[in-house]
């Protein structure tokens, strides 16, 4: 049996484990029942190694709870980036990496044969042509090596731009890297530049920091490329229950939707099979496979741009995208003289809804959206100020009234029996 390795081949499995440790914070070994005990122990050990000070252990009757506890608003570097820096490799991979860079850094371009000969004669390293060719092809794709055909022969040279030169040359770039490497949207790539040149972020913190998004970033470049190239993709979702089959769906991606308040990110896409726009949570997607170019992309995108204006959050509702929608109206009471900050809050948080003053100390928000239910989580942040809710659906209104009654009782209120 092979021993434990710090390095990993498969990022998907790690994503699942880290997410569970990080989000739930109270998983024990038996909770991971769809996995083997060995896998659990290995994944746990890796996570412990990356997270170090942020791991927390609590013993219970069911076993030892392992969790990650981070005040992510006050950290200098997202520790989950470490997962990306753990890819396994072979001895040849690392040797060829440094040898090819060493040979090519004089700026001269060389053929495959010259490179293989140099490796042999100057470095006493025997590599067959195919191994070196494969590595050069890989590095050409990565942009480390530039390949140029002269006649029938391919010449290879090192890409010109070096991270340290760039940072020295362009004033302020180091500070920009420090910020953008922690800010949302693929910060890990910026962090990889900083790590290469030995810079650490000592200036910035990110509040409301959903660090876990960095794990989903593995999918994002492929989604962005598919959007740019107007291609469909097949999304394969994680299985959430023991016997779940992986479900797959072919979709045409339009945009990535980011909720900066709930910690969820989505692909908004047109789903040909369902003939409608749907959103898919990024954290539930395991893999993405690029499919074909969508001939109808521009027309769908136009429809999407219209439809997204009628989403309060990310839901296109249950109706067909052009179906009837009933507007929801929520009226709030505000002490205008002393509570102008509430009006400011409504203004800044209303999104696509319309806010009107409808009476003395009364403000009504009207949202003509596909899924009025999406407002309700937000509306409850105004508990203590909601005068009425109209429109939407009967179910939404009934649930809101029922929730307030339940919460009233929960916090010690005694209900008047006559009120139903």
């Amino acid at each position, binding site marked *: 049996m092979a021993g434990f390795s710090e390095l990993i081949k498969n990022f998907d499995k790690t994503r699942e484990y880290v997410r569970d440790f990080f989000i739930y914070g109270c998983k024990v070994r038996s909770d991971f029942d769809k996995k083997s005990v060995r896998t659990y122990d290995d994944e746990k050990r890796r996570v412990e190694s990356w997270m170090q000070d942020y791991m927390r252990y609590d013993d219970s009757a069911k076993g030892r709870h392992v969790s990650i506890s981070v005040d992510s*608003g006050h950290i200098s570097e997202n520790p989950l980036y470490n997962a990306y820096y753990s890819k396994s490799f072979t001895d040849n991979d690392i040797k060829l*990496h440094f040898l090819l860079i060493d040979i090519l*850094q004089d700026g001269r371009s060389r053929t495959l044969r010259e490179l293989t000969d140099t490796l042999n004669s100057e470095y006493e390293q025997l590599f067959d042509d195919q191994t070196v060719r494969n590595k050069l092809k890989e590095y050409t794709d990565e942009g480390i090596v530039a390949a140029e055909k002269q006649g029938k022969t391919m010449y290879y040279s090192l890409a010109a731009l070096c991270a340290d030169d*760039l940072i020295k040359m362009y004033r302020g770039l180091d500070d920009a890297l420090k910020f953008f490497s922690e800010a949302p949207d693929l910060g890990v790539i910026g962090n990889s530049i900083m790590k290469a040149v030995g810079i650490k972020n000592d*200036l910035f913190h*990110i509040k*409301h920091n959903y660090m876990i998004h960095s794990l989903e970033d593995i999918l994002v470049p492929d989604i962005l490329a598919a959007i740019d190239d107007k291609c469909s993709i097949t999304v394969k979702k994680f299985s959430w229950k023991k016997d779940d089959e992986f479900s797959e769906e072919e979709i045409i991606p339009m945009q990535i939707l980011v909720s900066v308040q709930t910690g969820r990110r989505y692909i*908004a896409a047109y789903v040909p099979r369902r003939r409608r726009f749907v959103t898919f949570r990024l954290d539930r997607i395991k893999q993405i496979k690029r499919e074909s170019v969508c001939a109808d992309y521009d027309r769908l995108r136009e429809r999407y741009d219209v439809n*997204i204006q009628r989403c309060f959050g990310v839901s296109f509702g249950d109706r067909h995208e052009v179906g009837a929608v009933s507007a929801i109206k929520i009226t709030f009471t505000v002490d205008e003289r002393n509570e102008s900050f509430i009006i400011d809050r409504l203004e800044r948080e209303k999104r696509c809804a319309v806010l009107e003053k409808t009476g003395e100390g009364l403000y009504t928000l009207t949202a003509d959206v596909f899924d009025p239910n999406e407002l309700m989580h937000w509306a409850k942040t105004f508990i203590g100020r909601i*005068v009425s809710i109209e429109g939407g659906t009967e179910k939404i209104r009934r649930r809101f009234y029922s929730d307030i009654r339940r919460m009233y009782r929960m916090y010690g209120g005694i209900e008047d029996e006559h009120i139903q």
Partner: protein
Amino acid sequence: MNIFSEIYGTYFRIAARLLENEVTDEKTVREIVMRDGFRDSVLFLPQKLIPSGEDCGLFRRGVDNMLRRITKKSPVKVLTKLQKMWLKAKLSDPRIRLFLEDDVIEGLMEELADVKPLYRHEHFRLTDRHADHDDYSDEKYIAIFRTALDAVKKRKIVDISFTSAHGKHVSGRFVMLKIEFSPKNGKFRAYCYRLGNDKIKNSGLINIGRIDTITDTGRVFRTPVSMDDYFSSRKCSTPAVIRVTNERNGVERFMLEFAPYEKHTVRDLETGQYTVELWYDEQDETEVLIMLLSFGPVIEILGPEKLREQAKERLMRQYELLWKNEQG
């Protein structure tokens, strides 16, 4: 082209660092692995670097027992295509002007002229960012941001006048410690100490967008500052204690939404309910309270009493509003 590649990996990075010198020794290898590696790397990586029969062949042992690199020069740090595409995308982010002068941006744009940006702004849609986010392209804002950033970097003492959230005009002498950005608010803020007679009076957070003037006093704050102590002093003395039920997928929703907070979770195996202790910055108490209320009856604030009382007071008011209105 994928960021999950060994070329960005910790092991490659450590090897690159060691290959900067023609000669090294086993002790240095272990020290650098300990310093730059993962917790357990010292158990795995040194034997891959130190000639032993199991190593990957980057070093040869000399007669003096020292380790000599097989390469001739120190490795260069070539930017990959992915890194260049990321940089190019960031050059179109309006916040880049907070850090780089226009001519620097132009220079970088030229440098990356043949690189396609990794993404465009319109690829992403922030569904719930507050509408009153900072205007990063405003020249006055940029100038104030840069002065504040410089003050943070050099621990400069600065005189600041700003308008508080309550509309009050405030001015004073401050030392700025760190800059914070909130994607939810779209705002930059500076963590600082307020000084009086050159001594720390209190700690605070100033919105960069609310600063009217910021002037360098020409002096530097030399007292060592522990940011851990600073943040601890701002944290609530007792955590919020929340019972979370799984109604409406409450556990997952709650855990995800509160993921940025430091928390400790215990699960009751009998009821399947979770009890979460949640630590937050005292100044954010109202924000935390309304976030908790938004979960409705799926969660309950068990303590501390002060927080529960605030929830109760809002619920009583809400109940009265709805049913008084309905009866009326």
